[in-house]
């Protein structure tokens, strides 16, 4: 039985539905590394620190695995892979909940620079980010938490060859530890441009925010006449920003399905182990069927996240719409899966000592980061011109 008679998205022939052998091998190696370096105890240790990551692990992840530049072209010091490989990395990071400035620096900032900077700026900025030597991040939303670029108010005023930034950004991932900030700001009260500024520049004040999800730090950053460099040739960086946000949505969706899959596995193994009323709770149909529903949910979300990465990789014209699908579906699935995983664990699942809440909180923070599911569904409809 066909599930959809005529899919609206014409599934392009050039899109792959399976990972290659090499990609699977890459995933396996990465998973082994992360199981070794980021067991839950280590996650708990790092999430309690202000810095929020282990520089030694970051170094190995950069030097041995070249992860921060996985999707950065080789001429800028990267590994020259694309969105599919980035998706694999994010999925595995989501699974292991590694505490590291990967999403901020490699996904958000590097993508923004690749999308918006001049050739010279790319040559200048990307190699250090790709090598993991420079930690960068991207500042988009402001105090209202609105992800629509039209809501950006932070001002960039031309001053000589540079710009002065004035205003406040919030929800900046790893904003407290990044060395380099890429900031979306309104130039001349009109266009939205991307600007680069060292985090220690004069007029930049950073404050770590208390996130519900301590495995991913966020900061508020105030700019007072802070001197920044325009990225790209033009003050109109809206397309670059928008593309960056879509890529980040695809990456985050893959991270989320990685986390959801991990939760599902933990729920299944608990259900097989836990005995109540003389039998494994996984033998009760209520639990069996709940787990089956969770599996369906997670697999469907995975398909969307994978397709989005494949479509983005080949620049399928539909990919920005599919990015919306992927972010919305993965958010809903991750939150549901986390809630049900707690439910299956019962009281134990609600304790601090049980690891489930680490993923639950990541699910909640990811649900709203880059925009809630509703926001992305509405954006999907707009992109489809419904």
């Amino acid at each position, binding site marked *: *039985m*066909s*599930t*959809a*008679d*005529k*899919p*609206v*998205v014409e*599934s392009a022939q050039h899109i*792959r*539905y*399976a990972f290659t052998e090499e990609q699977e091998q890459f995933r396996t190696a990465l998973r082994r590394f992360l199981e070794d370096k980021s067991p839950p105890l280590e996650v708990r240790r790092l999430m309690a620190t202000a810095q929020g990551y282990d520089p030694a692990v970051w170094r190995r992840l950069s030097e041995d695995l070249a992860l921060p530049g996985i999707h950065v072209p080789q001429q800028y010091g990267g590994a020259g892979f694309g969105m599919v490989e980035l998706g694999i990395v994010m999925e595995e990071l989501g699974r292991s909940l590694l505490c590291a400035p990967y999403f901020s620096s490699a996904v958000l900032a590097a993508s923004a620079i690749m999308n918006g900077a001049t050739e010279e700026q790319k040559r200048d900025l990307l190699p250090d980010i790709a090598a993991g030597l420079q930690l960068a991040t991207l500042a988009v939303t402001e105090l209202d938490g609105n992800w629509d670029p039209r809501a950006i108010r932070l001002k960039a005023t031309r001053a000589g060859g540079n710009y002065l930034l004035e205003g406040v950004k919030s929800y900046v991932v790893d904003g407290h530890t990044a060395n380099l900030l890429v900031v979306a700001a309104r130039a001349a009260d009109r266009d939205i441009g991307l600007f680069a500024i060292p985090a220690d520049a004069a007029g930049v004040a950073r404050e770590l925010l208390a996130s519900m999800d301590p495995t991913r730090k966020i900061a508020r950053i105030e700019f007072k006449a802070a001197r920044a460099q325009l990225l790209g040739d033009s003050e109109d960086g809206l397309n670059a920003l928008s593309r960056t946000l879509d890529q980040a949505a695809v990456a985050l969706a893959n991270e989320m399905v990685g986390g959801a899959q991990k939760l599902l596995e933990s729920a*299944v193994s608990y*259900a*097989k182990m836990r005995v109540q009323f003389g*039998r*494994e709770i*996984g*033998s009760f*149909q209520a*639990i*069996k*069927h709940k*787990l*089956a*529903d969770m*599996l*369906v949910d997670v*697999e*469907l*979300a*995975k*398909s*969307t996240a*994978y*397709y989005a990465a494949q479509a983005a990789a080949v620049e399928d014209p539909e990919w920005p719409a599919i990015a*919306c*699908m992927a972010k*919305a*579906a993965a958010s809903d699935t991750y939150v549901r899966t986390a809630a049900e995983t707690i439910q299956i664990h019962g009281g134990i699942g609600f304790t601090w000592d049980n690891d489930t809440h680490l993923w639950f909180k990541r699910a909640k923070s990811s649900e709203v980061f880059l925009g809630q599911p*509703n926001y992305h*569904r*509405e954006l*999907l*409809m707009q992109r*489809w011109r*419904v």
Partner: protein
Amino acid sequence: MSEISEDEVRREVRAWLAENWDPNLSLLAWRNKLADSGWGMPQWPRQWYGRGLPARMVRIVEEEFAAVGAIGCLRGGIGRLAAAVLLEHGTDYQKQKFLRRIITAEDTWCQLFSEPGSGSDLAGATTRADFDGKNWIINGQKVWTTSAHHAKWGTLLARTDWDAPKHEGLSYFILDMKQPGVDVQPLRQMNGHASFNQVFFNDAVVPPEHLVSTVNNGWQVAVTTLAYERRFAADIARPSRRGPREGRIYEEERAETATVMEPYKWYPQRAGRVDLIIERARETGANHDPVVRQEIARLMTLAQAAEWTARRARAAQSQGRPQGPEGSLGKLAASHVARGCARVHTMITGTAAMLTGADSPRNGVIAEILVSVPAVSIAGGTDEIQRNIIAERVLGLPKEPRFDTGPFRNIRRN
């Protein structure tokens, strides 16, 4: 037998078609040629109307048929299933008697498995076959039989041992539908269609040579059948025919297709017609309602995800990798999509969703969606059965405690 190359096959079939294909033949005459030559079922053995080709070469034959617009054998249908089962389990007598007329489509077949008392629990069949010393005498009732009123033959699962355990007392027969002891009644559904039949057996007769496999091995044969059913269902893509479509044979084929497809004409509505959603929203203006937009986006995402999941499963398979969990959830996902469609179509259509028939939106199609969707989560294994399968086979969770062991006679049933 030496391996034949793809190129050789292509050359051979092309030559044969050049010589034999004629759109002005009767369908029957052409299908007889197919049976004689083996090109209708190239993967079947040479002695049984085939050419003994490996399965992967079927595609080549089909491409060449399509290239000249040639008609093949009936692709779907119970006859095809019966043939697969007979090739695996049948006697030479049975192959001789039935296979050719399946290929030529002179005989229509139906499947007599489900009963009123055994739906989800197919192995609980209570239709009985008793040997009277000469023949098997059949009594009981089957249900959900497609095309029983057209069928000449039925594949029948009947109980032959009431003291054996449930799965070990069933036998598999081929039953002549056109006999006095067989009464076929249409079964009307809540959506007004009658795509299925009920079949009543009152001392119907099956000669012993129509027993397939051995007595009490019927469940194994039925399982084979169901496996073929899934395999054939997955095997849907067929190269589209090129060239003009004129000639007597095309007329006859169109009539044949119409008859075969008649019971399935509401299946697109049963699936919820996700293809209509956006069109309908634009048509009614519901596309401007932010609440409906959310629902549409949610549903389209689900439908796409289901589609992509199916493709993911096929892609893994085609790379020779074991299929992951994504291969087992299509039915359940389809059921979610269908239910979602019914909901969203109602939201889009508003008050007019209470209409039906010619005056109603899309000439009754919307109404038919609403009253057909409930079938999706039931037919071919309920959602509950699907969840059990996923939980036990994919996730490896413990099986249900069994209450149906021991002699069938003692098992509780309706």
